[in-house]
């Protein structure tokens, strides 16, 4: 196994709960709002 493959093989897998959260409509609606707000804040922080 080469270095890249070994590194991938030793990386953490998401738990079942994380995978469910990534697809949960309710949780993702909340994340959609939160991520948009976070991105907008970050964008407006720049010098432009």
């Amino acid at each position, binding site marked *: 196994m080469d270095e890249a493959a070994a*590194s*991938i093989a030793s990386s953490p897998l998401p738990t079942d709960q994380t995978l469910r959260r990534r697809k949960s409509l309710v949780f993702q609606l909340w994340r959609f709002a939160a991520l948009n707000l*976070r*991105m907008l804040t970050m*964008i407006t*922080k*720049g010098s*432009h």
Partner: protein
Amino acid sequence: MARVVVLGAGISGHTAALHLRRLLGKGHEVVVVSPNSKWNWIPSNIWVGVGKMNTDQVTFPLAPIYKRKGITFHQALATTLYPEGSAELASPHVAIKYTDPSRLNETANLAYDYLINATGPKLNFAATPGLGPDGYTVSVCTAPHATEAAGHLAAAIAKMKQGERQRLVVGVGHGTCTCEGAAFEYTFNVEHEIRDAGVRDMADITYLTNEYELGDFGVGGMTFTQNGFETTSKLWTESLFRERGVNAVLQAHVEKIEPGVIHYEQLDGSKNTLEYDFAMLLPPFRGADMQVFNAAGEDITAEVFAPSGFMKVDANYTAKPFEEWRAEDWPSTYESARFPNVFGVGIAFAPPHQISKPRTSPNGTVITPAPPRTGMPSGVMGKTAAMTIFDRIKMGSSATSHKASMANMGAACVASAGTGLRRGSAAAMTMYPVVPDYQRFGPTGRSAKDTFGEIGLAGHWIKYMLHFAFIYKAKARPLWYLIPE
């Protein structure tokens, strides 16, 4: 009356032209020169490349928009700059050659008071023998390329359904490529499509990249804070590769491509091959390769453009070791180093150095991603140049320049990992600033609060929303300017 000529109608040039038209009164002329008749929302090309969108969903004709907004449009290629004028025309001007079918190969000179070079990348497939649609691989750089890629992918899926195992390679086709994020996106969209087709067990998918490690994305990687711990984009990305069963070949410079075989060199100097049935490899970029002449008719191209064809602007181009790179080396006004009424924005400006640490193989081959400067930073640069020009037209040439350095600018990258309003997924990442500032932010070079990543369905919704929002903006629909770049 002033005339502003914008070369290029991609994200940067189109943004600059629309803002100039909005800001300047009707007494001033805004002219756009672009060899393409259509505007393309390039981030959605990856969905065209898997057959989930068609060309018309990611492009629209520029001419009607420019007609409605009062912008003069020439479908033509800029070939030569005369910033001091020429024997033929005393004022600064640019020579163009029409690609418009009704005036094909006709030439003209366009005089300007201000010029914005937003010519974007020249897709340099020729840098790697066998690379690209004229060779043996496909691309998603343009909408027609992506349509062709979708056809090849569908054929590969059909073979898998007939029981024929397929080897799919997605990545970059040269050691100095940029846009690794797009290759990453396409990798996982391909994986998603194959899984949806029920033949995932028949596919070997490999991501082939010039990145030193996964998660580099040409920006030297990122450090995120999650659940009270610092984690790296490397670990985060590797986890996704493991979860989705995708292989990776890192630190690779593709030397040549033959039918079914990719030849590449790695940073340790080893030469290897990778067999494939389907390969989408992005090309390296060059500048538009315009020539520049002074009033005496002498070729001064080397004073205005870097050897890469990108325009030299207000950056510090002094060669120095990686450890001495500074955030302030990066340009902020995008004014040409030689002519203050000429600006180079978006991909067209020459970066002072890479963002990822430069590395060279024992054979002397440079294997390092070039700095990404697409999308949001491109739009911001276009708007910044437009605002400076507006001020100079209104207040005189001494008006202070507006500034937007990539070392003081954030960027959001929403990397799709599969489509579908219920089953889609994307890696939503932001970083601030794009160019790390180690003096200001310490060892990570970026703000811990504003640099984060998250995988999930919400990321897909954001990317889908951005698709419609930016096409709305580019069509200059009502209140378009309220949508941030």
